[in-house]
């Protein structure tokens, strides 16, 4: 379990990194925290000819709040997001979710940029980006482009990034004071990738959802912004309304089968998450009917 031989370059600037990627294209791989890339190389699932290590690029690291935008640099490590008071104040969903990403040792190295570029459909962070309406900031030799999170994730390990581009950061709108959030995932062990998860952001007025973004993960090839949420907005929620939303959810999901769960089990668990999420966000324990429509 040793990686095949590869060349290594430590990028001295973003421009330098982009030059290297421009020259080597898909024969090169960006190295951030290495927590997904190195295991894959050691298993020889991927054998890049060149590693472009961007670890020194301080300009890509850090969290800043300007006006109504929270900007997180691509190289910001999971642990720094987890401990950031700015994130806790302005995007508390992310603070809660990132505690479910792996274990402390992995969070000490792994980066948000690497995580989003990797685009594991079972990962918490892409779902949070969609729930939070984030913008992904991408730079190529031609300049910068900004992609809505909803458009960024294209499938299993697939994103809108080209081999010549670098993910440089994400921008989140500051959560409005009357918003609330819900995060829950079902994982066999703490730190494991989820079997099914839900990241949700809502505005509740007088016990009614006026805004609701429900993003399910690990139940499809990318985070799913559920249409089922529209069934729950601006209505007084009853078990019947919830049941109708579950039916919509069941139809829009296309989950995969794997060792942990069959497609039907994932559908079931997503419905449980929907019920639990709605119940928690509205503080209505009576709605938690455990996915039984």
């Amino acid at each position, binding site marked *: *379990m040793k990686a095949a*031989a590869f060349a290594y370059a430590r990028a001295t600037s973003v421009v330098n990194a982009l030059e290297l990627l421009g020259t080597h294209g898909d024969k090169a791989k960006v190295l951030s925290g290495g927590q997904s890339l190195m295991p894959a190389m050691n298993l020889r699932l991927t054998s890049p000819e060149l590693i472009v290590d961007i670890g020194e690029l301080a300009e890509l690291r850090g969290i800043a709040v300007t006006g109504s935008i929270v900007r997180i640099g691509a190289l910001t490590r999971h642990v720094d997001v987890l401990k950031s008071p700015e994130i806790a104040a302005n995007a508390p969903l992310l603070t809660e979710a990132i505690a479910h990403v792996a274990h402390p040792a992995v969070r000490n190295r792994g980066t948000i940029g690497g995580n989003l570029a990797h685009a594991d459909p079972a990962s918490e962070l892409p779902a949070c980006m969609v729930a939070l309406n984030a913008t992904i900031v991408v730079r190529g030799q031609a300049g910068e482009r900004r992609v809505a999170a909803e458009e960024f994730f294209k499938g299993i390990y697939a994103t809108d990034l080209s081999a010549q581009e670098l993910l440089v950061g994400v921008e989140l709108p500051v959560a409005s004071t009357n918003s609330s959030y819900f995060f829950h995932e079902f994982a066999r062990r703490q730190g494991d990738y989820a*079997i099914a998860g839900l990241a949700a952001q809502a505005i509740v007025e007088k016990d009614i959802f006026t805004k609701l973004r429900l993003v399910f993960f690990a139940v499809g090839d990318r985070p799913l912004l559920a249409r089922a949420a529209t069934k729950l907005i601006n209505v007084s929620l009853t078990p019947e309304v919830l049941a109708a939303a579950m039916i919509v959810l069941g139809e829009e999901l296309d989950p995969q089968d794997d060792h*942990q769960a069959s497609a039907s089990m994932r559908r079931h668990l997503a419905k449980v998450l929907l019920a639990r999420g709605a119940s928690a966000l509205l503080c209505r324990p009576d709605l938690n009917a455990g996915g039984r429509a």
Partner: protein
Amino acid sequence: MTIASANPEILSELDRPNSYIGKTVPRPNLERLMQGRGLYVSDMELPRMGHLVFLRSPHAHARIADIDTVAAKQLPGVIAVVTGKELAPVITPWVGVLSHLKGLKSAAQHAIAIDRVCWQGEAVAAIVATSRAVAEDAAEIVRVEYEELEAVTDMRTALDPATPVIHPSLGDNLAFERNLDAGEVDTAFAGSDEVVEADFIFGRHTGVTLEPRSVLADWNAAEARLTIYQGTQAPHMVQNIAALHLGLGESQVRVVCKDVGGSFGIKVHIYADEMATYALSKLLRRPIKFVADRVESFNTDIHARDHRCWGRIGVGRDGIITAFEIDDLTGIGPYSMYPRTSAIEANQVVNLVGGPYVTRNYRARARVVFQNKNVMCQYRAVGHPIACSVTEGLVDLAAAKIGMDPVEIRRRNLIADNAYPCASPSGLRFELLSHHAAMNKLMTMMDYDALRAEQAELRARKVHRGIGIASFIEVTNPSAAFYGVGGARISSQDGVAVRLDAQGSVICQTSITEQGQGSESLTAQIVGSVLGVSMERVRIILGDTDNTPYGGGTWASRGAGIGGEAALQAAKILRRNILDVAAAILQSSPNELDLAGNAIVNASDGSPRMELRELARIAYFRPDTLPPGIQPELMATRHFVPREYPFAFTNGVQASWLEVDTDTGFVKLLRHWVVEDCGTMINPQLVDEQIRGGVVQGLGAALLEKCIYDERGQLTNANMADYLVPMSGEMPDIDVGHVVSPTSETELGAKGAGEAGTAGAAAAVANAVNDALRPFGAVITEIPLTPRVILTALGRI
């Protein structure tokens, strides 16, 4: 039987002043390991050492048509590429059978496959290079042409006439069958008020040691001697087997076992790739190192527990169990493992089912079949978790059927604490067990009645918690009955040599080995106690066939009970020898003297007479001052093997308290209790941690661990992300209590404690899950109890 710490007034060999026995003291090797100064095989580098990588079969069953190694051999850094055919002249094949397991058959296995591969992961070529990375590069360009054969994967159809026979010369795929019929089973069932039956299904799992299997073999052609550095539990067994198959005398093979990062029975076997490593060192006349990587560990470390066991139980309305009957089926892969064989687990299941209970009526059949999957063999608590889950699952089903509390039905059937010695229907002899005392203690520890009340109250609020109980027996301290009588050269005796050095410290060589369980500690505690020497002055040497007495090593919960007794007896001889010399120097009599506080003291009042270092100085440097005829013998050796009982049985009971989320099928473990009886405890902390570690492995089996094969014999989760080992986040607090019934076969009185935790944990969890699900009428007799299994049983998916 006594409850721990009762009768303090009876002073024995074990209760000497300043005795370490029965005390929690830190392990002497802790500091070294914590400072990163352990020495594992993968740390070792020898001059001219080659790194070995195996090219392994991607098919479960295939004929090898051709192997082309030309390109690989030309890669810079490659030392050799060797096929099975090329290695065969150096090392002979083997057959994993033992004569006391009547009818057991297996086929000849080669170090590297020659013309056929029988499981995915079997080695087809060895690549030796200057680094592991280069060897892996070369492995990618070895071309092997396979003709795929039909793979036999489902144990249930392995014996069907339509299924191909894996080894045609054996006639069929049946490796072993055992039948037992004791008492009057049919009459007993006919006379039972209720008869309940179930199919119990156990997932295949494996040991997942932190340190993978590793071996460094160094053939010294000038000396005609092979030194094997290996993380093994049984150095003398490795010496014997390596010599036998390389055509050497045992004196030509030295096995050195430094630090070992966990074994759990995984490292007590002889693996084909290890044999190939020894042979390659001889062939290439240089040191060769093989360290399994994680993927090949999953594909080649022995698996265990893949059983399907039908069982039934008869019971009267008064709760008296009338009979047990089982039919067990297990698939062991394509070969019976060498040299301990793969029939032992099924054999143990037959031996152990019903073991804690009084009924004499018991019928069992066990069949062991070949399949094209990785080999299966003995792993921590061999057979016990199967037997315990079947027995305790059936007892709970019977209790539910007659509406009796699970504790009450056990109390009515467990062998009485004053009924010993006695024997089980399968012929196991019990010297002294304490089932009822253990159950009583458990009830107090867990506050059973309060927990039942809490469960009822929560159930009303739709919170579904369950309590599961599992009584068990455990085989420890095996005599020659385990392997020796079947013709295996696996010693059941152990030896210890102790000597006083010139400054009054003690050096102790023992044939038991250390893999993290505390063998060094317990040996030092015993020797220090007997010699009145502080533990930091006792140095333990183990794991070296050149430098320790001959013995079995550490497995089957035997280190403390057998190796510990040898240490006790050797230290006693040395003490007598020391006191003889002391009496001569002090013009006293040996009876009036004793050893304490690193000194010779008066036996009567403990007042010091002479430092031990002073005695050593005189003995070694001024013997001329001793009276004539006194020759100090400051080294003593003793060996020990149990002779009266084939095994020292222990017993105990476990309980699990957990919550099932009936919407998701997730199980949350809330608390786990164990009461066990391993006889004399040398170091209570080591016992507790053995129990806890064992429980955690049992909990892994209950909820998480499974080697998942597809129908073509491909292991589909051979990595740490998909094969789920238990981790601390999900583990409950584990409370451990003790009842102490020493064995009178030894002066030490210690039985084993290494496997008790694993024996009963899964059974307790399964019973607790079923207890939680009782309102839903669902009964699950399959582990691991995954969310999918639970949701399916609840009809939710």
